[in-house]
């Protein structure tokens, strides 16, 4: 139970941090914000790696493998496409 409360504390505080940080992002960058934050939510990948490489049954390895594929698409695709978009934003000469 104690660890649940600790996790809950982190969760709630992080939401407040997210709220403060993200309300400052201007509308002109909302699409890169979505793709970039989306890449960050691909952090599930590290859970997927533990499942795929852990010492257990074939079932978990298979689930883990697909989770790694999904997570990596999310992470690599998300960061790259955000980089590509942000490179297009230019100031007036």
């Amino acid at each position, binding site marked *: 139970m104690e660890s*649940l409360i600790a*996790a809950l504390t*982190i969760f*709630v505080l*992080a*939401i407040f941090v997210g*709220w403060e*940080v*993200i*309300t*400052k992002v*201007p*509308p*002109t*960058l*909302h*699409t*890169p*914000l*979505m793709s*970039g*934050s*989306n*890449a*960050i*939510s*691909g*952090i*599930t*990948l*590290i*859970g*997927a790696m533990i499942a*795929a*490489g*852990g*010492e*257990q049954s074939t079932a*978990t390895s298979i*689930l*883990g*493998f*697909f*989770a*790694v594929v999904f*997570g990596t*698409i*999310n*992470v*690599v*695709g998300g960061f790259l*496409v955000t*980089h*590509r*978009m942000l490179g*297009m*934003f*230019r*100031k*007036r000469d």
Partner: protein
Amino acid sequence: MSAIVINLSYLLASILFILGLKRLSHPRTAVQGNFLGAVGMLLAIVVTLADRAIVGYAEIVAGIVVGGAIGAMLAQRVQMTAMPQLVAMFNGVGGGASVLVAGAATTAAIATNQIPGADVLIATMVSGLIGAVTFWGSLIAWAKLEGRLSESAVTFSGQQAVNALLALAILALSIWGIIEPESSAYLWVVLLSSILGVLLTIPIGGADMPVVIALLNSYSGLAAAATGFVLGNSVLIIAGSLVGASGIILTQIMCKAMNRSLTNVLFGVAAAVEAGPSQDEVYAGKVKSASAEEVAMLFDDASRVVFVPGYGMAVSQAQYAVRDLYNLLTAKGIEVLFAIHPVAGRMPGHMNVLLAEANIPYDVLKEMDEINPTLEQTDVAIVLGANDVVNPMARDVPTCPIAGMPIIDVDKARTVVVIKRSLSPGFAGIPNPLFAGDKTLMLFADGKKAILDVIAAVKAG
């Protein structure tokens, strides 16, 4: 590597995520912000490889190679107009990963006779629910945006009741899974949540897609956070809740920009509306058509021009022609700005990306609230591919379907040019009195061709 080092690295990764998002607050620092986020992710991945729980690397490496290749290919090839679909797909795979990870963690725990506690099991069920709703919801959103599914709202009688029953069944199955962890309850939760994800997304129409994408973005974050609870991993919880908050903020902004509540969007409830004036009543005898040459002459003594682009501009691929006209007018000493309505594209900020791609500088792209007070001093407002977001009825007629929706007040400009193929209505299906306004000139043509003709006329004149 010791658990302390790993956990401290996760803390550092979390800090990098927060700093990265902070730098997204300005186009000048945004590239660096995204890079910081990527560094945080790389750090988290590398230290995880050193985790003692990992004994085999074959599956991990294979998964990263396959996923990385697919992700990189999608990111390089995507057209900017198709960005909403891509983000929907990325949201979906993120949710799918959460479902799989939570499932694998529980299976592994049970296989080694370490029955997880109730708190972990609750988190597992929540991961399965949110993850599956995100995955299938995103898939439907993707199919609608790609035109593989009907864009219009798909509704059937009793839809709400079916959704409520599904939700109850998912709750009951979750309780079963928590009492009997070795049962197949998790599978059933995922299955029913998948159906729920489909049913929740099909009733949402094309015009509301920006809201759905933002909401699914939030879900994908919450799914990652729930998986963090399952694994007792704080970096997942922090990263997931940051994204959850981001998606909720964007969802709110989109709803406000359409003056609709979230429930209204999600359940496709349309308010009872009085029948407004017909097209004929609004337009008959009052619409003035103009040629490209006449429009070009307007620029002769203009000092301030504002473009109001809508998604129609991107559909006709007119943004590059608009850029040329922008350059031409700027060279004549005219101040040229762009007024961007929050729902001008098909996802939050979409129009800005489309214009940035065409090399239009970001500092001439102005938000609705910033441009509106200045429109009275604007000589020419050019509406290109936008309709409902410039309809003065939203402001003036409290009984119309879009009443209260904030609009760009182009009717206050000295002259308004509307470039449009015909007088057909926008998503809201109502006539637009702007087209019949005293100061309005209609240039009936395809968006790209019209702009090219105007450019030719300006150069000739």
